[in-house]
Every structure is written in C-alpha cells, then in structure tokens.
C-alpha cells in the first residue's frame, strides 16, 4: 500500500523554483533513495513533506497525501499530530540539530510527551529503551547528558531515537551521515536499515552517496535542479542509466574511474535562479544535447515504475537511443 503519495509537488521561493513539479510515492516497508548534487532540491522537498517550509517559501501540489489523508488541506494543528509521530525526520548535522540548552533525556521525552503522553516514570523508561535501541551504552546516565558532551555519531543516534520515539510509519533521513566520520557512517546506516526492517517503516534516504543507495535502496529517484530526471528500481537505474545525468553521476564515482588517468566530471554547475536554460535544464552540461534539447523541455516518459525525463534516453550501451 502506498504510504506517501505526491503528485506535481513544487516549492517556490519568490520566482525561484527550488522543487519543480515532482511526483513519487513511498510504500510501507520500502527504502526509497533520493540522489542528486547540492542544490538539486532534495532537502527542500523533504522539508515540505514535514510542513517545515516557511514564508516566503510556498508549497503547492496536485496531491500530497499520507495514508490517504490530504496533508495540504488539513488544519495545522492536525498536521502537527502527524509530523513527528507518523512521519519523522533526521537531519544532516547532528551536532547542531540538538538543542544545546536541554539534556538528551528532555529532548527525547519531549517528543514522546507531545504525541503519546504518560507519567514521568513511564516516559523516562521509554526514553531509556529508545537509547538502548539505537545502541547507546549506559543509557541511564546519558539521559542527563547535554548535546555538547556527545560525539557526532552519538548525537546522530540520539536524533534517530527522537525520530523513532513515536513509531513512525515513514522516516525521512536527510543526508544522515554526511557530517560524520567515515568509520561512523556505516554504523549509522546499518542502524537505520535495521530499525527500518524491524519496524517495517517506509524510509526515504536522501544522500549524494550513490554507492550507499545502490546497496540499501529498493527504488531510487535522481534529482537535478529541482526536477526528477530519472526514477526506477535501484538495480536497474544503476546498471543501465537512461538519463545522461545519471550516467555522468555514476561516471564520477572513483570506482568507475579505476585505471583511468582522470576522474570523469560533468562540466559546469547546476543552473541557479538567473541562468535557467530554456529547454532541458541539463542541456548546457549534457554531452548529447541537441538544438531540440536546448529549446524544448522534455516530458517524463516510460512506464510509471521506470521514468526518465529526456528527449533521447540512453540505451543499454549508454548511447542516445534515437
């Protein structure tokens, strides 16, 4: 069953479209990977799911439903009941994501109290359970620790404990390991995947680590300049990319450059507010771009479970089809 469904979701800041008409869905127990470079709209789109886009940002969509409830039309207070309990989120930098003025225990219990309530003793017991669950040693003493006394990895574990406190059905992880040491990164991902399997949550994993997505995600979405350029089952997208951008991303991995003198890199940068090309947004950087690409914006094509936004999708040999 589809847990979260969005249809043509856009987030605009004034004239700038940070997220441009994206559509996807997440099923129960599914891991969806969203990849793309910085500024591609990955984080903004997930913040909009949590209702965390502030003025002057504006969210619009043909459909934005969670378990068949319309998130956009419901009153704020009702939406807050879902935010933090049924949909939870963890963020990029755990060291700044915890409030420095309050203890770890306070911040976990606050989440529990907001959505579930209970006596002081129950809440504390539950918080200790959560800390144990996320693999923090000596949880009883950690409850009274302040965030600055924790390492980055520990802080991210606390963030995860806060996020899963109310047994969410959908967990959004926005680059959960980017700010951490390489050795810690694997531990945190293992923990997330363990918890996801245990609780059969839907997990949206936002990252620019392609190898990670290839390993853990069921399905993957590739974003570029606020648009979804390609989507499909992770294995297919990575083994046979149909969009030139996905191909370029994969080519830029150090693994695929083994034996070559230089790492492949896509020239240029993601277009900003003032230099948005007329046709396909990738056309200035795309090695296969034609005049048609530069003048006419492509539509998404292909079956629903395997879409690509390109006039000339790549074939199995990695060359433009037409």
């Amino acid at each position: 069953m589809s847990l979260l469904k969005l249809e043509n979701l856009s987030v605009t800041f004034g004239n700038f479209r940070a997220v441009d008409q994206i559509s996807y869905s997440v099923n129960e127990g599914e891991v969806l990977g969203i990849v793309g470079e910085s500024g591609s709209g990955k984080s903004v789109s997930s913040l909009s799911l949590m209702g965390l886009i502030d003025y002057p940002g504006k969210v619009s969509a043909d459909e934005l439903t969670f378990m068949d409830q319309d998130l956009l039309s419901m009153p704020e207070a009702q939406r807050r009941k879902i935010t933090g309990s049924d949909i939870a989120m963890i963020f990029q930098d755990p060291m700044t994501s915890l409030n420095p003025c309050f203890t770890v225990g306070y911040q976990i219990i606050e989440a529990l109290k907001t959505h579930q309530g209970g006596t002081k003793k129950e809440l504390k017991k539950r918080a200790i359970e959560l800390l144990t669950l996320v693999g923090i040693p000596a949880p009883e003493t950690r409850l009274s620790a302040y965030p600055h006394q924790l390492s980055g990895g520990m802080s991210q574990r606390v963030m995860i404990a806060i996020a899963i406190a109310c047994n969410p059905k959908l967990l959004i992880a926005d680059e959960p390991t980017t700010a951490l040491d390489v050795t810690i990164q694997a531990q945190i991902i293992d923990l997330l995947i363990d918890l996801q399997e245990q609780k059969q949550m839907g997990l949206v994993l936002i990252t620019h680590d392609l190898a990670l997505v290839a390993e853990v995600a069921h399905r993957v979405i590739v974003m570029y300049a606020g648009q979804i350029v390609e989507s499909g089952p992770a294995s297919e997208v990575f083994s046979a990319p149909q969009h030139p951008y996905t191909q370029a991303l994969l080519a830029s991995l150090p693994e695929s450059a083994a034996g070559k003198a230089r790492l492949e890199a896509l020239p240029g940068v993601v277009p900003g507010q003032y230099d948005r090309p007329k046709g396909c947004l990738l056309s200035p950087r795309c090695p296969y771009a034609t005049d048609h690409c530069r003048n006419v914006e492509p539509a998404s094509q292909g079956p629903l479970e395997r879409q690509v936004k390109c006039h000339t999708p790549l074939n199995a040999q990695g060359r433009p089809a037409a």
Partner: protein
Amino acid sequence: MFQFIFRRLSLVIPTFIGITLLTFTLIRLIPGDPIEVMAGERGVSAERHAELSAQLGFDQPLYVQYFHYVTGVLQGDLGNSLVTKEPVLSEFLTLFPATIELAFCAAIFAILIGLPAGMIAAVKRGTLFDHSVMTFSLTGYSMPIFWWALLLMLIFSVNLGWTPVSGRIDVVYWIDDVTGFMLIDSILSGEEGALSSAIAHLILPSIVLGTIPMAVIARMTRSSMLEVLSEDYIRTARAKGIAPWRVIIIHALRNALIPVITVIGLQVGILLSGAILTETVFAWPGIGKWLIESIGRRDYPVVQGGILIVATIIIVVNLLVDIAYGIVNPRIRHSR
C-alpha cells in the same frame, strides 16, 4: 561550577585594584595645588593648608598615600565630605536607595517592553511590527535622555498635568525614612494616597532612564532570536510536531536569552550613569544628583568615593551576570 565562580572572582580583584588606582590618581591629577583648588575662591590660610595637607596625607610619599587609601577603602573609610564633614560612605548609603529604586523600576520597564518587543519582531520578521520596533529602538538608542526627560515633563506634567514635575513624593506627605525605598516607606507610613503619589513620581523618571536599555534589549533580543530561529535544532523541534509557541518559548527563547542576559547586565552601567542625568532633571535625591552637585562644589572626596563605589557596584553586577550566564549556558558551566 564552584571552580567556575572562583575563577571569575579571581579576575575581579585586579580590576578592583585598577579602579582604586584610577580614583586615587584622579584626585592627584587636579592641576595646581589640590588644596588650593578644593578651597576654591575663598582661599586658605597657611596653617589650614598644612592641616588639610596632613589630614589628606599629601605630605607623604605616593605609595604610602596609596597604601593608606586602599586600607581605608577596604575598611569602608572613603574620607569625609569637605562640605558637610559627613563620612562619604554614610552619605552614599542614605542616598543610594533612591537611585536603586529608580534604576530598578527603569530596568523592569526596559525588560518588560524590550524583551517581548524584540522577540515578537524577530518572529514576525519583515512585518510592519518588526519595522516599527526597529525604528523605535534605534530612536530610543539615539536619545539624549536629558532632553527626553524635559520633553516628557513638558508634555505629561506641564501640558496634560498627569504626573508631578519632580521629587520622589508630594510635599504634603511626611514619610519616615525606614528602608529608604519610597514605595515601601509610603506603605509603612499608612498615610492615605502616599503610595500612589510615590508611584506617580516614579513613572516619568523610570521611563526616561529605561529608554536606552529598552532599545538595546529590544535590538539584542531581536537579532539573537533571529539567529537562534535559523538554527538546526529549531528545525528539529518543529519536526517533532511541537506547537509553534512552544518552539519559540521553550526552544528558541532559552538560547536567545544567553547573549541578552549579558546585555541586560551591561545596562547596569548605563542605568547608573543615566541616573546622573535623569536625577538632575527630575530633582531626584539620589547618588547621581549628589555626584554632580559635589563636582559643582569641588567636594573631591565625595567625587572620588562616589565614583569608586559606583564602579565597584558595576564590577560586582558584571560578575553576577557572568555567573548567571554560566548557569543558563551548560556549555560554559561544564567546560571550566
């Protein structure tokens, strides 16, 4: 925590020594012969000159003079007023409650208005309210408060007749000086109308004295709040589904207050120096007016002692603020 307080305390001692040196030196910087200057136009006879010189210790070497000065200060001996012959400390203690009362009311006024105004301005950033708060606070910050006092007096006392012009209480009341605080003494006196008269006399001076601190607090609260509101942990709090007011009051305000507390502490200096101007305009019998009158009378021991006490009070308050800062901010409390 104990170590933290101890460390702060040890930093205060050199500052205090510096201030005694300063006040000690000041009086010796008077151009010409200090005794002649103190005597003013009346002049002084040769034996009176020698007598005064011995009394003030001017005939001894400087370091001996300083040593005597500091030992005296530590025992609470700040010398005697040349005019009233009263000990400086006891004169100060009689007048100080009036200044505390005024400064306290001004601080309450400044915090009660400045803090919420700055907070709401930050939350409603870019709105008309925000712009008005910023305009008002910049104006308040630029205000020559002696003129502000005159202007308010012109409008509210003279034209509208709402508030009395000067003093601490109406002359018809004769209030026993029990605590020195007019608000308390007027209640203790049991006289009908005394309290409301005391309050009416306090309103304008408090507003005048509180204007600059209010502006500073509002600006500081706003910018600190804006900074905190863009922090990651505020996003985390909102992602928990907490009500917006709770995010602002519990999560943002606590962090935003940390720099504001320091700023509020710094206002004590502004309040005490502002009291000099405010008390002069409103004929408020406190230490500010006392200091200015003593300067006019060339009563140097009073000037010297008064400045020393005021500076000491400011250092002590800053120390307390520092400690309070440590209590609110766990990072500081633990790191030392």
